[in-house]
């Protein structure tokens, strides 16, 4: 019996009008992780926001898998930089007079 936090890839593809191959390619590019339980493919529900984002990027903006891979790295970098900015801003307050 699969974990209740696992979503069947087939069901996800049906409800989002996606091809199974699309999800498989995302996995091959290392963009998402799939789990196989009793020969059925699942994704963890924590992957859902990422999965939907890739579906939007691919279908709405015609971005290919290489592009999505690059975007993922850049968004990660942006997120890291955003955190770094917050940290530096907080540190800066140390040198500001009350």
């Amino acid at each position, binding site marked *: 019996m699969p974990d209740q936090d696992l979503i069947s890839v087939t069901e996800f593809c049906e409800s989002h009008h996606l091809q199974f191959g699309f999800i498989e390619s995302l996995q091959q590019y290392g963009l998402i992780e799939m789990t196989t339980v009793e020969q059925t493919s699942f994704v963890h529900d924590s992957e859902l926001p990422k999965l*939907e*984002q890739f579906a*939007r*990027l691919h*279908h*709405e*903006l015609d971005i290919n898998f290489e592009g999505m891979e690059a975007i993922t790295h850049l968004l990660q970098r942006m997120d890291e930089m955003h955190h770094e900015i917050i940290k530096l*801003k907080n540190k800066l307050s*140390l040198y500001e007079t009350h």
Partner: protein
Amino acid sequence: MDFVDYYKILGIEKNASQDDIKKAYRKLARKHHPDLNPNNKEAHKLFQQINEANEVLSDPEKRKKYDEYGKDWKHAEQFEKAKHSSSQQHYANEGGQNFSGDFDEGGFSDFFESLFGGGGRRTSQTKFRGQDYNAELQLNLTDAYTTHQQTITIDGKNVRITIPAGIENGQKIKLKGYGAPGANGGPNGDLYITFSITNNTRFKRDGNDLHTTVDIDLYTALLGGEIMVDAMSGKVKLKVNPETQNGTKIRLKGKGFPVYKSEGQFGDLFITYHVKLPTNLTEKQKELFTELSKL
């Protein structure tokens, strides 16, 4: 409510072909898509405008109506009624693209609603995860020092959340499932709360460490002694070494800020001594200082 120039939004001429519209839309969508502009409200707003312009101009019927009434859109419905051509008026959306995701899906302008009614968005049976919500919560530094609960209101419902001690200014936490409801049975979105912490203390925070300056008088600095200083956890008794220099920094281990989600762990408190020189010296003091200076 103002007229919205969809051609201007897409940067195209009024006689643009469907191919031109598609190209212009794709180009702008790639630039302003919410997935590529996280935390950028301006880009989200622009994307909604671009989306709306495309919704109208890429649909020949809608484009015809838009072109026909143009700036007289306020009278569009009256004209329509006068024409008695209700059979022509089906604005159900078929085909094309269905945008979704991390932005306000109901974001059509009043102008659009007025001209085309509320049913602008294409209907679909696709299951979609609900939109994520973002909120900001203001806290004082003293509140962030202890783990505490707060009740926040989301869509009219009260939600009690636990804020762990040691949360940082600008830190974001996720409340799973507290976003907008999913569409067609899809899961709910999440709620992201960003904390904005106001310093209501005399301490300066650097991660888990706190910094402060303490005044000591000349005699304590020279001869040593004991002083009471304020830490976040209360008063602390400190021994000042003889001949302590102005600007000396000492560290009180474990008297700083709690480490986030690490119960019982605290950063350090750094104290910088500021030696205050006496003023309004008496004759006797002057005499003694003069004597000291000659030694």
